[in-house]
């Protein structure tokens, strides 16, 4: 005989304002098996939990239904509460009368009716619940960080510092990411390379860190604590163990006309190259799209000049199979293409550049050696126009990104300030919609650009840019001055919106990690779990989760590392006991479940069964490995004979819920 207790929560006014909680507890008290029913202001509070425990003992309850918020919020809380009072944790059911009821209804009568129905369904399910015991699974004490920018490097360093081995997988030939291309960093104006390259070297020298550069993740299998990852290490045609990074090959290579991606195509590199002087690992790579030897078999200059004998034209892609306990996504961002914004004449004039290109033009290691020169004719520009929010804060869809890219206000203030500092003869205009500088010492920095450096900040947007006689005719709004401005500029700099790296979407699919409509990784909770993906064992670091500047990225990278360390420090993880279970008597051995299982948890065995007239039948039946099964339920749907069932979510339980709702 079931003795079920029902506890209806008000959630302050969150539920009570739209649901008559007294009516709900009264109605549910009449359900079969319910021996106690009440309501309380905050069931999750200590007083609420104490009450549940007290009633379990007082009435000898063997099932509990809590009508409250989503089980994602407090199911674990109430299960623990009941467990302490001696009830099996899986004898507790949550009826979600907040997210799925009070928050979406305005009418109290409708809300109350629905809350009663949801409560009734939960009671019907509890009737069929059985106590379950969770097993454990071991944790592989090694982490994988995908992406070797400042986010990935910082996460890896912090995990390594705690004593756990980490692999960094970086798709480019060197780690360092976008920060290597930046000239100076706001708001302190220290040089990006000066603060980043020591970290890159630290990562390379740390004995717990293994850098797998020029490589991409190809597949991910497994689950939290036990991931199996295949990594494709692309052929760089140079033996990493032999190359000393002397750079002689990169000087002698006759193929000189390769656009240099490190300088965003503003100059050229050779077909064999080291991305930049401080690259880690400092090993050359051959670009197979341009190398004459690889394309035609005639050349071989680099192998002749290499004293270390590191060149290997026959090198092939290598597939590495590794196991990890935790995975961190740190795939970063890219500026968007300026293709759709031709009103700014980006494709018509080389003097219209993006802000990242401007970084290279200002950088001492850039194509102009740090002297600001117009890309078209190499002359010194006198009038510069900076345009903010290009492709940010748009209506979405065709127009651009709906979000604020966050970093542009500050880097534009930095560019404007540095330009005025180095070249006091320049006139610098910044066209802005809003200046957004929430950050420590950020607004002071922007005000310095205006007050101390005389940058002209104009509220309004640029409408069009027309190249004419070597100048750029800029037509713009000056909303506060009430006029339309016409400026003859020498250079126009576009603060292009940023978007997640192209590799993020396929990676999210491999990791079964969720993403938002803009392809940023979704966090498990936007406020309380900002560095975890909803997929257990997957963590988020840096701009792959949303636009971020360097200080925020580093902070989040450290937070992600802390979460990884917390996971890897455990020897065992408690498994979810709600796993699939095959009824061998009903299984017909068809393999349908094995084929749909995404975790490889199902195997088939030949087993002897007793047949009629003392015969023995050998039959092929499915078996579930409960440590591997994640309880997704795919097999229960695929099974044609109804042999597969999910513990805690059995077909009978779900049908009972449906029946209760339709009653």
């Amino acid at each position, binding site marked *: 005989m079931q003795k079920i207790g029902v506890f209806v929560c008000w959630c302050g006014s969150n539920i009570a304002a739209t649901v008559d909680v007294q009516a709900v507890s009264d109605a549910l008290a009449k359900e079969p098996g319910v021996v106690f029913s009440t309501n309380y202001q905050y069931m999750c509070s200590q007083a609420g939990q104490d009450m549940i425990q007290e009633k379990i003992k007082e009435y000898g309850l063997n099932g509990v239904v809590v009508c409250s918020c989503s089980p994602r919020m407090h199911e674990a809380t109430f299960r623990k509460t009941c467990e302490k009072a001696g009830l099996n944790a899986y004898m507790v059911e949550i009826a979600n009368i907040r997210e799925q009821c009070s928050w979406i209804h305005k009418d109290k009568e409708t809300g109350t009716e629905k809350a009663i129905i949801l409560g009734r369904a939960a009671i019907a399910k509890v009737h069929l619940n059985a106590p379950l015991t969770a097993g454990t699974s071991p944790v592989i004490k090694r982490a994988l960080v995908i992406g070797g920018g400042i986010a990935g490097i910082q996460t890896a360093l912090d995990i390594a510092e705690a004593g756990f081995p980490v692999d960094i997988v970086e798709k480019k030939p060197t780690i360092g990411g976008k920060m290597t291309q930046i000239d100076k960093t706001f708001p302190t104006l220290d040089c990006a390379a000066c603060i980043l390259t020591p970290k890159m070297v630290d990562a390379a020298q740390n004995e717990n860190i293994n850098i797998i550069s020029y490589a991409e993740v190809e597949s991910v299998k497994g689950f939290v604590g036990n991931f199996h990852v295949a990594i494709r290490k692309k052929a760089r045609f140079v033996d990493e163990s032999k190359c000393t990074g002397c750079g002689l090959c990169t000087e002698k290579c006759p193929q000189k006309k390769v656009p240099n991606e490190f300088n965003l195509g503003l100059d050229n590199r050779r077909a064999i190259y080291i991305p930049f002087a401080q690259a880690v690992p400092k090993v050359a790579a051959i670009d197979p799209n341009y190398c004459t030897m690889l394309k035609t078999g005639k050349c071989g200059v680099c192998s002749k000049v290499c004293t270390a004998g590191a060149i290997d034209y026959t090198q092939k892609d290598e597939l590495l199979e590794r196991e990890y306990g935790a995975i961190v996504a740190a795939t970063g961002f890219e500026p968007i293409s300026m293709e759709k914004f031709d009103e700014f004449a980006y494709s018509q004039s080389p003097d219209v550049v993006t802000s990242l290109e401007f970084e290279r033009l200002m950088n001492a290691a850039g194509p102009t050696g740090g002297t600001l020169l117009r890309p078209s004719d190499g002359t010194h520009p006198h009038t510069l126009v900076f345009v903010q929010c290009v492709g940010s804060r748009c209506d979405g869809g065709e127009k*651009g990104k709906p979000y604020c890219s966050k970093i542009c206000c500050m880097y534009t203030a930095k560019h404007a300030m540095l330009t005025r500092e180095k070249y006091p003869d320049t006139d610098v205009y910044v066209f802005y919609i809003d200046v957004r500088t929430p950050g420590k010492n950020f607004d002071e920095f922007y005000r310095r650009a205006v007050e101390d450096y005389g940058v002209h900040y104009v509220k*309004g*947007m640029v*409408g*069009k840019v027309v190249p004419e006689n070597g100048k750029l005719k800029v037509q713009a709004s000056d909303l506060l001055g009430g006029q*339309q401005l016409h400026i003859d500029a020498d250079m126009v700099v576009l603060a292009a919106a940023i978007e997640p790296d192209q590799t993020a979407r396929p990676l999210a699919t491999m990791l079964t990690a969720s993403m938002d409509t803009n392809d940023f990784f979704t966090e498990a909770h936007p406020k309380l779990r900002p560095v975890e993906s909803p997929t257990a064992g997957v963590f988020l670091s840096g701009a792959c989760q949303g636009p971020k500047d360097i200080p925020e990225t580093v902070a989040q990278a450290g937070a992600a590392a802390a979460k990884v360390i917390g996971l890897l420090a455990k020897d065992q993880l408690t498994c979810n006991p709600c796993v699939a279970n095959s009824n061998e008597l009903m299984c017909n051995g068809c393999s349908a479940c094995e084929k749909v299982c995404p975790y490889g948890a199902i195997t088939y065995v030949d087993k002897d069964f007793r047949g009629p007239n003392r015969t023995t039948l050998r039959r092929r039946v499915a078996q579930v490995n409960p440590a591997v099964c994640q309880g997704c339920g795919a097999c229960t749907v695929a099974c044609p004979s109804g042999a597969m069932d999910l513990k805690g979510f059995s077909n009978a339980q779900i049908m009972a819920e449906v029946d209760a709702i339709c009653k």
Partner: protein
Amino acid sequence: MSDMTEIVKRISGVNPRKCMKCGKCSAACPAYDEMDYHPHQFVDMVENGRLEELMNSKGIYMCLSCFACMERCPRSVEPAKLIEAVRLAVVRQQDRNHLKPEQIPALLDPELPQQAITSAFRKYRK
């Protein structure tokens, strides 16, 4: 006048609340200097119910309907549709025709875009 504001919003299909006041419409407008109110102001005036001022303005007939503002607006506000709706609202007022046919020959000016006359001439009879 508040009814008229609603009518203008309805027939134009424009929601002025989508405007983030960036001014790109006015930056793109080729007739900016001819207008007493400018594209970004049209949107603001409709949003704040200042329709009477807008309806009495000469500037609304200077809009060429070139749609540069609609093309460039990052928020898809479409100021040109709004101004067309305001012009319609004006001509639909009985006996308030902006222009009478007999006035046209004297007004013809090679500098003036044809579209402006067409817009000004639209009328509505009950």
